C-alpha cells in the first residue's frame, strides 16, 4: 500500500459516508435500506482490500475471510428464511 492509495481510499470512504447520510433525506422506502447496505459493503470492501491488504494476501488469508462470509451466509440465511417465508 502506498500513501497515495491510502489517501484515495480515505477520500473514497468519506465520499461514501456523505452519500449514505445524504440518501436518508430522500424518502425511498426500502430503497434507503438497500443504498445503506450497498454503501456499507462498498466501504467494508475498500477497507478490507486496501487497508487490510486483502488484495495482495495469500490463499490462506483469503480462505479465512471466505470462511467468515460462508458462516455469515449460513447464519443469516437459515434465520431470515423463517421471516421471509411466513
Amino acid at each position, binding site marked *: 500500500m502506498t500513501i497515495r492509495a491510502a489517501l484515495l481510499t480515505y477520500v473514497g470512504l468519506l465520499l461514501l*459516508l456523505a452519500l449514505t447520510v445524504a440518501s436518508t433525506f430522500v424518502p425511498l422506502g426500502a430503497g434507503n435500506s438497500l443504498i445503506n447496505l450497498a454503501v456499507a459493503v462498498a466501504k*467494508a470492501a475498500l477497507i478490507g482490500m486496501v487497508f487490510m491488504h486483502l488484495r495482495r494476501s495469500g490463499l490462506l488469508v483469503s480462505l479465512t475471510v471466505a470462511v467468515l462470509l460462508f458462516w455469515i451466509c449460513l447464519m443469516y440465511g437459515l434465520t431470515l428464511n423463517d421471516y421471509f417465508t411466513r
Partner: protein
Amino acid sequence: MSAEAQGHATGVEPSGEFGVFVFLVSEGLLFSALILGYLVARLAPGADFAAGSRELSLPLGTLNTAVLLSSSFCIALATIWGSERSRWARLAALATVALGIVFLCIKGYEYFEEAQKGLLPFRDMSDRYPKAEPQHLRLFFDVYLALTGTHALHVISGIGLVGGIALFWRRLARPAHTLKLAALYWHFIDVIWVFLFPLLYLAR
C-alpha cells in the same frame, strides 16, 4: 514446527497474520450474531425501529464515523511509515489512539444525552411515550446499547493495543510488524462500525 516452516507453500509469511485473521473471523461472527439479533428484533411485528433511530443524533453519529475512518487512515499511514522505518510511524500510531479516544468521548456524550432524555439505560419509557408503544422503543435502545457497547469495548482494547505498541516501540523486537498486525484489528473495528452506523442511525 519451526517458525520458518509455518505457512510454507500457502503464500503466507510466517508472520502471525493468519492467526490475527482467524481471531478476526471469531470476532466477525460475534458481531454478526449481535447484528442478526438486531434484524430479528427489527423484523418483529409492530417493532418501530425508525422511531428509535430518529431519537439518535445523526450529526454526532456521522461525525463519529468520520473520526473512526480517519483513525483507520492514520494507522494505515503508520504501517506504511513503519515499513520504511520512519519515525513518523510512532506519531501516526499515537494519532490513531487520540482519534480512538475522541470517538469514545463523542460516544460517551451521546450516551449521556440519551440518558438525559430518559432513553438509556434499560428504562421503562411508558411515562415518556404513553401512546407510542414504548416497549418497541425500549427494544431498539436495548439492541443499540448491546451493539454500540460491545463495539466500544473493542475500541478500548484497540486503544490499549496500539497505544501499548507506540509507547513500547523501542523495546519491541519488530515494532513495525507488531503494529501491522494491530492495524488489522483496528481496521476490523472500523468495518464493524461501518455496518452499525447505517443500521442504528440511518433506519429513519
